[in-house]
């Protein structure tokens, strides 16, 4: 049996896990995790085999590609309707393989972690059923080779995200957050749907052979160039609109922080490591399309880097531990889009992978913290936890160092590559903002560490005595996730300038690199590149130092007390910025004003128009008919002989007219 024939199992197994758990899970009670976790374990093994085979070059060459190794399977024809034909097939190329590694690894660990985290929840089986449904959707999204199948998967991840955010649906805030996520995502999805339609129209505009196959359609669009009826820039931006929704980029970023209402494993899996990366994946997947429309790429870069700084500025003052991480996720996703926008495709996917692991780790760690302090999420009620929960502390510290960009951890390599590439590819403004965001990142992460793990405990004393480390089922995934957080950068990011991941992804992005005329400058460790590395490490260190100074630390032999007066002094000096950050730049209020108040008025006016004019017309037609009927009713006397007379007269008229008109 070849590896290729195992690809459909990646979808079928979690699907079966979902169906079985949904049907009989309630009866399995606390044993409900066996089927879903088992399914994902097998999926992980298959995915690893596939990824190894594809990335090591053992897999055959893809059809129509000169260098890209991978597997492609055609399954069946989904929609055969005249010209409109949609085939379902899967492709595992190096890009999908990278995503597969992150999705299945983090997915598996989150499944295992949930056994411990959700053990007291009455909806235990439901949770695992949803998790498996999510895995189905995400794997379908990564593997599908047709725009329409990607769109279906796109909606399915949205659905599972909705179900899992609203998992505790009796809690009003969770229910509202789920709805918010769903609705905000719809806005982006409209763009994506239009984008797919534009691709369909463009792909057959000249020779009439429409296609929705991703690779073929992009090739055709590029070959047609300016002859496309819908400009490539518009098409690319519509696809990007979908990516903005799913990856929570400004101005559609408002749903992600609220999504933290869901259980923490969900935040780790969906809202940090996998689903929110779907937008990055989508843009990377359609990279030649974007490369052919450089203006669209500049917009991608601008929105990405703006989201990065916006979210980082908000993360600085949030007090909810999960919200800090959520804004951090937004900010890191912003980095990825900035990287895509400047044309540093590989750097974006590199950061996607490292971020998937270390942000998954940080979220699972925060879940362990929340578990320990009895469902408290407010960091002002924490402090000094490093003594009580050492494993969680150690792993979260590793995650925080990684995201701050300190070598040799994973985050350093990927973030440095994004910033360095941005600078070298002629986007110094992206680099400058990115460097500033790097300071903020290091600062808010070590503020989080300071408030949570160092200093003195500030919560109620009764809880302090009961705080204990999470069970091994939760700490072991943390420890396992810490491994790639430390080593993935070394493994993928070396040697500098010709890294492993570049080797993997080069064929996928070769066309775009050519389109953008990116020249391959020689890597200069003791020149420009070394200077850029130095700058990004230095700003990370500065951010950490400032945070430690203000919020204290107990790192090894280093003991610094927290200085709340100084923090207050600082915030009092920039009251506007402080309030803006604390209130998330009033985006929720702005949306309320725009869509609830103003939009509500418009809707009300339209409602009036509909009720009075449209309904009035329809009802008027009805009333006229009723009146006419009432008048004509008297013709019907109910007397048989009246009707008979009518028939006889009719007969005479017909016979007479026949004689007059035809008979002569």
């Amino acid at each position, binding site marked *: 049996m070849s590896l290729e024939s195992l690809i459909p199992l990646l979808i079928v197994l979690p699907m079966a896990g979902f169906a079985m758990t949904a049907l009989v899970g309630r009866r399995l009670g606390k044993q409900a995790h066996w089927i879903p976790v088992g399914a994902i374990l097998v999926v992980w093994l298959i995915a690893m085999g596939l990824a190894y085979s594809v990335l090591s070059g053992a897999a055959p060459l893809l059809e129509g590609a000169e260098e890209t190794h991978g597997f492609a399977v055609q399954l069946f024809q989904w929609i055969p309707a005249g010209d409109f034909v949609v085939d379902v097939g899967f492709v595992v190329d190096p890009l999908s393989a990278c995503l597969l590694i992150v999705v299945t690894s983090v997915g598996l660990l989150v499944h295992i972690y949930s056994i411990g985290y959700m053990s007291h929840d009455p909806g235990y089986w439901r949770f695992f059923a949803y998790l498996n449904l999510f895995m189905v959707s995400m794997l379908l999204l990564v593997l599908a080779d047709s725009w329409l199948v990607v769109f279906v998967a796109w909606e399915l991840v949205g659905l599972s995200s909705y179900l899992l955010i609203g998992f505790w649906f009796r809690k009003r805030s969770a229910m509202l957050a789920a709805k918010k996520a769903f609705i905000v995502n719809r806005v982006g999805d409209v763009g994506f749907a239009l984008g797919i339609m534009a691709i369909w129209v463009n792909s057959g505009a000249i020779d009439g052979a429409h296609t929705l196959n991703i690779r073929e359609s992009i090739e055709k669009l590029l070959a047609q160039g300016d002859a496309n009826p819908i400009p490539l820039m518009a098409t690319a931006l519509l696809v990007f609109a979908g990516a903005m929704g799913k990856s929570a980029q400004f101005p559609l970023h408002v749903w992600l922080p609220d999504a933290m209402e869901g259980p923490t494993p969900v935040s780790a899996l969906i809202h940090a490591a996998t689903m929110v990366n779907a937008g990055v994946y989508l843009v990377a997947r359609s990279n030649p399309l974007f490369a052919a429309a450089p203006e669209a790429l500049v917009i991608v870069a601008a929105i990405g880097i703006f989201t990065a700084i916006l979210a980082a500025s908000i993360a600085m003052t949030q007090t909810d531990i999960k919200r800090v991480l959520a804004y951090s996720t937004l900010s890191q996703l912003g980095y990825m889009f900035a990287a895509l926008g400047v044309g540093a495709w590989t750097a974006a996917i590199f950061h996607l992978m490292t971020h998937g692991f270390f942000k998954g780790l940080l979220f699972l760690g925060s879940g362990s913290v929340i578990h320990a302090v009895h469902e408290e999420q407010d960091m002002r009620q924490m402090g000094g936890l490093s003594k009580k929960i050492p494993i969680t502390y150690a792993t979260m510290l590793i995650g925080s160092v990684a995201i701050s960009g300190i070598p040799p951890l994973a985050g350093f390599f990927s973030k440095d590559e994004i910033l360095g590439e941005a600078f070298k590819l002629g986007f110094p403004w992206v680099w400058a903002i990115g460097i500033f965001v790097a300071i903020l990142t290091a600062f808010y992460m070590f503020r989080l560490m300071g408030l949570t793990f160092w200093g003195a405990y500030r919560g109620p004393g009764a809880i302090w005595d009961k705080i204990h480390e999470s069970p091994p089922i939760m700490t072991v995934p943390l420890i396992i996730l810490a491994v790639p957080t430390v080593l993935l950068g070394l493994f993928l990011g070396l040697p500098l300038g010709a890294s492993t991941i570049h080797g993997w992804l080069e064929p996928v992005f070769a066309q775009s690199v050519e389109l953008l005329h990116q020249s391959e400058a020689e890597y200069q460790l003791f020149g420009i590149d070394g200077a850029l590395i130095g700058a990004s490490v230095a700003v990370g260190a500065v951010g950490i130092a400032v945070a430690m100074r203000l919020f204290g630390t107990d790192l090894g032999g280093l003991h610094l007390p927290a200085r709340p007066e100084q923090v207050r002094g600082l915030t009092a000096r920039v009251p506007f910025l402080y309030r803006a950050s604390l209130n998330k730049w009033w985006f929720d209020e702005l949306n309320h004003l725009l869509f609830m108040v103003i939009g509500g008025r418009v809707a009300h006016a339209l409602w009036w128009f509909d009720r009075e004019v449209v309904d009035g017309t329809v009802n008027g037609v009805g009333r006229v008919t009723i009146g006419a009927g009432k008048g004509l009713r008297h013709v*019907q*006397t109910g007397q*048989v*002989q009246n009707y008979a*007379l009518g028939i006889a007269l009719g007969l005479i008229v017909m016979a007479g007219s026949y004689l007059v008109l035809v008979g002569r």
Partner: protein
Amino acid sequence: MSDSLDAYLVLAGVLFAIGSFGFLARRNAISMLMSIELMLNAVNLSIVAFGAFIPALGAQGSIIALMVMAVAAAEATVGLAIVIAIYRNKKTPLVDEYDAMSQ
């Protein structure tokens, strides 16, 4: 038997006119059914006459006439049954008092 087709057609026309008049003018439901039979038979007569005088039609005229008789018999059966059913409710055979549908 007359040699002229016209004589038969005139007779059929007269019968049909009597039948139509009876159907339109009589108030008794039974009489109206009888008038319908009269009209049907007038038509039957004309068909049989055409069949006899036009060789090309062959046996078709007679066959159609037989079919009309069968249908007429069925119609008379159903019609009588309806009239009797209504009579049981209304206690009258006069159709101008059957006015339940004029509401």
